[in-house]
């Protein structure tokens, strides 16, 4: 099994690499374009539809500091694809180097169970869960900002903080009434 390993390569100088995994391959492109505009750090972005990544590119690939799973709540396929991709990550990543980003949470056609399922998944893996708005440039910009904060910590570029410390603060927690039926 070709697991993606967090510490098997050397880091670059003042550089951070982020892997965006999204089944629809739409939002990741706009986030990538915004991420590379960052000037204080050299950001390398890798886009994928699902894991595992092809073996041929393994040599050229830099060390991946943060893996972001972008899930579109409208489609069940998106969630399932993200779930199956999780198996291909080395457990070392789950110490603060994995993050879930969810789009279209406000859409009326989304069943409540799906968001709950994503929440449970993120909480069980101790990963942060971010909500993003993908249709406007403002939404893309704010999602990028938040990702950059986590990325810089995960790449070790922020003194005194490590990814594991940050994930303790930002990880997803389940509300105590998650098993209660909702109002509609």
């Amino acid at each position, binding site marked *: 099994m070709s697991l993606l390993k967090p510490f098997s390569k050397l880091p670059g100088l003042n550089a951070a690499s982020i892997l965006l995994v999204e089944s629809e391959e739409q939002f990741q492109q706009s986030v*990538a*374009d915004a991420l*590379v505009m960052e000037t204080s750090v050299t*950001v390398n972005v*890798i886009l994928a*539809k699902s894991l595992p990544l*092809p073996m041929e590119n393994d040599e050229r690939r830099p060390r991946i500091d943060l893996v972001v799973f972008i899930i579109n709540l409208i489609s069940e396929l998106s969630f399932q694809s993200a779930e199956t991709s999780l198996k291909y990550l080395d457990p070392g990543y789950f110490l603060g180097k994995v993050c879930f980003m969810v789009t279209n949470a406000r859409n009326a056609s989304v069943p409540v169970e799906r968001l709950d399922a994503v929440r449970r998944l993120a909480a069980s893996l101790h990963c942060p869960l971010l909500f993003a708005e993908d249709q406007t440039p403002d939404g893309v910009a704010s999602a990028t900002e938040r990702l950059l904060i986590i990325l810089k910590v995960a790449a070790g570029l922020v003194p005194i903080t490590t990814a594991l410390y940050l994930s303790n603060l930002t990880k997803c927690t389940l509300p105590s009434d998650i098993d209660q039926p909702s109002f509609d």
Partner: protein
Amino acid sequence: MDVSTKCLLQRLIRRIPSHMLKTTLDQWSRLTAAQIQSVDFTESKRTLTEKLLAICEENECSVSQIAELEMIHMIENPNVGMWYAFQLLEPQDDACTLELIQFKEQFKSHLHQLLRSVSIKIKRHTDDAVWIRIAWGDGISRPNHLKPTYVVHYLQTSYVFVTSVTSKLKPLLSQALVLSTKHHGIKDANLSGRNLMAIRDLLMNQYQQVFPSKYPSLLAEENQTVSNPRIEKEQAQMAADRHKMACEAFGDGTLPQLQSAVYKLETKFKDPTNKTMTDREGTFKCVVKFASTNILESLRHCASSGIASIPVAPLLSSVTLKARNRFVITDSDPGPSSQIHQAQNNLTTDS
């Protein structure tokens, strides 16, 4: 002009959109230039209708002339209502040298023989399509011009496109078509849609087809959208392969606009977890319908984005390969296999 003629004209003018009214009337050329000048085409539809009604009364337009106007409008704007495609079978030896005049005479005479009161108009369009407008009547009554049938045929091909015709009159139309085009039979091509040009392009393969090739072209730098070298697309090759296979199944560029694909299943219900349904005798009848503003684009997108599995399932790719959008799927035997079985509507004549 009697009441029914006036009614016909009124309905027609109401149907034609205001911006097309002037050009259509010019093409009709039954009104004098002065009369057309006297009408202000920016007024409301109601005043326009009254004015034009008055002018036509003056000119004493007959039903036949109004039918001609309707036909002109229909030719300009054919995407109203459903078109059904038919295929002519077994051409005789001289079917490929059929000419317009011969076809016109034969069709009119055959149809008049079968049904005494029909009103037929035949016109040849600039792109070699022959348009036929038929108003049907009973043995007793006059032809009903409010519900005409339009037929489009490309001479020397075997395709005919028909708008709605009742099932009582369909055999008569089919017989007349078969005899006048010198074929031996006609069958339903199982292809229907709102857009006449789309079903024509699909049947006559006039969309951009992609053929599988082992060696891609050398000039492969078409889409250099990834401008930034720091963005790396890991599975770009897989995505390109998927897109290529989707285009091979459905075609490249803009695809003909079909609105639906219908699959009628007459199979046995098979689900190991549901004993009550599986044990039931008899066939399980079910209809699956895919609908979209452009179903071929939707299917191609499904295949290229990975929602539908690659290689494309034959049930989906048959829509373009066999140029049909109605399928009947039956079991060949009580076993677990199933195959596509075409429901044919053969009408043969003896000549």
